[in-house]
């Protein structure tokens, strides 16, 4: 099955190096790395994984192979940003995953970082959140700022 990116109920904003995607149906925000964005934008259902690897190489000028693309597709799928695509998780052995990560210079940077858009009530002062809905935790590597301790106020 050739990968097809999901485009419905999404709003995307291009930044110089990344793409921010808001999922209106799930109230999540994703930050796609340059690599993930290049792959996601090219997944029109007609291109193979090898085609995508070539596209990434051409667009970014950095080496990308099949494993690297599969890894990115897996991340995009986890973020609910794909309609269809290859079943990737079992296909990539851990050594291949490490190779792919290294090739894509991703050792310290996530392909897709995600947060949950909190309901407004989650921003109420502590102890006064009423019953308007609750805060939802964060996902991905962008850890949130809640729960800090040690300093008072604010």
């Amino acid at each position, binding site marked *: 099955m050739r990968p097809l990116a999901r485009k419905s109920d999404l709003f995307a904003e291009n930044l110089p190096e990344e793409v921010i995607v808001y999922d209106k149906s799930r109230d999540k*925000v994703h930050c796609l790395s340059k690599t993930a964005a290049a792959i996601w934008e090219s997944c029109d259902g007609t291109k193979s994984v090898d085609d995508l690897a070539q596209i990434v190489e051409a667009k970014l000028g950095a080496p990308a192979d099949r494993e690297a693309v599969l890894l990115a597709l897996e991340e995009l799928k986890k973020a609910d940003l794909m309609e269809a695509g290859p079943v990737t998780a079992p296909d990539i052995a851990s050594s291949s995953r490490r190779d792919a990560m290294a090739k894509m210079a991703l050792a310290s940077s996530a392909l897709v970082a995600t947060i949950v858009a909190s309901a407004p009530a989650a921003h109420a002062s502590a102890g*006064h959140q009423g*019953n308007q809905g609750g805060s939802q935790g964060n996902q991905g590597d*962008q850890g949130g*700022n809640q729960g*800090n301790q040690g*300093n*008072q*106020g*604010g």
Partner: protein
Amino acid sequence: MFIVSPNTDVCDSNLGAEMLNSVFPVSAWGVRIDLSVPTLLLAELPAPIVPGAEFDNRGPVDAELSVQLNHSVEGDPLYEITENGKILGIETSLRGAAEAVESWAQLTVATLAKGLVFVHAGVVGWRNRAVVIPGRSLSGKSTLVLELVRAGADYYSDEYAVFDSEGRVHPYWRLPKLRAASDQKAASHLLGGILSGPPPIPIPLGCVLISRYEAESSWQPRRLTSGKTLLGLLDNTVPLRGRPEQSIKTLAKAIANARGFEGPRGEAADFAQRALALL
């Protein structure tokens, strides 16, 4: 400063003085709200209840909040808080009810303000650029802001960074709120005079500092990409669910010429010194 004018002519109860409700309509940041609260609660509310709020009884109301004083079987006071006819909760103390009303009013304005994006954050001005420290309640924003002011920065806000459509940051002109009485007193001493003057002008965003407290750590942040910087702001953006496109576009414009940093911080004074040196 603006003064909220209670309209005590409008009463909806005749059960005794402490049971009387005063209705006062105000608008702030383009949002019109009506508050109906027991008269005895008025003295507990800050004036203005939302920074920049003015008495305003014209035009359509965006949201209504009512507090009704009832009593339990044992005779204890029960403050029933209702938003647009829907019960939000019950407070058992006057102080608690006042805090709930203030919190509701500020959050409602932050959620509904048209053309503006409110991000939960502390803000100071430094070299004519805004330094924004996103974080929820109890994340230590107020303490950090006060330390930055002590270190020479201009006070803008300890609660919200208010972004306009050009990406500029407006002051949210109120006295910082701290939990410890001694800290609150110090804040009043430091900022009381400043807050009695006019608020500073809106300024462009200079940097976003994302941090969490870690004992014995020292602020040595890593530089964030623009995407991660934006994500840090969006994680604390009040109208994100209601107005995702406007929120993202506004904040993307704001960060276009700004820098973002992230890392654990230790004590606030250390953070303030290092942060300003970094900038």
